[in-house]
């Protein structure tokens, strides 16, 4: 036995412990890298999708035939252009050249999505309802949505009051609605939600 070469139990145990610690460290690092890559991919997909939606909104707003409108489901107008829709948020209405209206809104179902539909006339349904978050590499949902109109009065930090509305800033109009602004927040459930937005004024001075 004395002539045989080999390792004692203690040596094997020490080597095994060190080996296991190193292997655990490496595997943990490897798994963390994989998770990190997945998160970064999801974040990139989210940013791409949000930017694409913002660009589409800007393009449509630029081509609007007339002033854009905003409809509030809580206080709908007498003759709505888009409502009723499956949302509790503001709906952006973009009038088209052929008399139809394109409606952008956040579907407040679960999970909330950014939707677009076109209503040929107020008597017809708003179809087809396209989900603008579909086709993304990672599942996304809209955690926030806001649509507002840009008026010269609001742009000058004034407020409109009275009927007809008069701006608190002299010389600024409350009646003219040259553009609209949309802000939305997307989330992939893992990363920090990202906010996107677009503001477009059709009437240029």
């Amino acid at each position, binding site marked *: 036995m004395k002539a045989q070469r080999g390792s004692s139990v203690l040596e094997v145990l020490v080597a095994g412990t060190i080996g296991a610690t190193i292997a655990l*460290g490496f595997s943990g690092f490897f798994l*963390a890298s994989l998770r990190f890559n997945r998160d970064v991919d999801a974040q990139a997909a989210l940013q791409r999708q949000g930017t694409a939606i*913002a660009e589409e909104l800007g393009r449509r707003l630029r081509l609007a035939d007339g002033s854009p409108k905003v409809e509030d489901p809580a206080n709908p107008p007498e003759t709505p252009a888009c409502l009723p829709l499956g949302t509790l948020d503001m709906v952006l209405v973009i009038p088209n050249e052929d008399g139809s209206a394109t409606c952008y809104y956040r579907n407040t179902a679960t999970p909330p999505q950014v939707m677009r539909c076109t209503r040929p006339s107020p008597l017809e349904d708003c179809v087809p309802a396209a989900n603008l978050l579909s086709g993304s590499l990672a599942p996304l949902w809209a955690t926030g949505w806001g649509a507002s109109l840009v008026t010269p009065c609001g*742009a000058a930090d004034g407020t409109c009051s009275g009927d007809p509305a008069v701006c608190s800033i002299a010389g600024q109009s409350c009646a003219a609605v*040259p553009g609209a*602004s949309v*802000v939305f927040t997307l989330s992939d459930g893992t990363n920090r939600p990202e906010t996107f937005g677009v503001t477009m*004024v059709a009437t240029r001075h």
Partner: protein
Amino acid sequence: MVSVGNRLTKNSTKAGTTRARLGGERGVALLEVLTTSVILVIAMLGLALMLSMGSSFVRAEGGERVALFLAQQRMEELRAIGLARATAELERPVPGFPGFVRSTTITGGTDLDGSGDIPRVIRVSVRSLVRQAGPITVTAVYAKH
């Protein structure tokens, strides 16, 4: 019966034999393993730091994108008012967007055609307070036709 002195002599002889046996063996010493581990840990820490920095840059990019939106938004609002009537604004927080400050500066441009009408150069700057995110400036030039 073995005396104490004899036992010590026997143990010393055994230890010497073991040392001699280990000295002749091929293998990796504990010190070598530990040194390698330390080097590997330092390398992994460097990689982890690199990944972390990448993540913070992605986050900062998000901040810059929002800053660009806010700058464009203000410029569009100024267009709604009329660029001829736009006024300068000191740096102040943007309502509804915590962590962002916005300012508007208006300066006189160069009278390129010599008509005497100096164009207005309107700059809207938005700065994100997120680390590593640079300021975003959108510029418009207004000239009479």
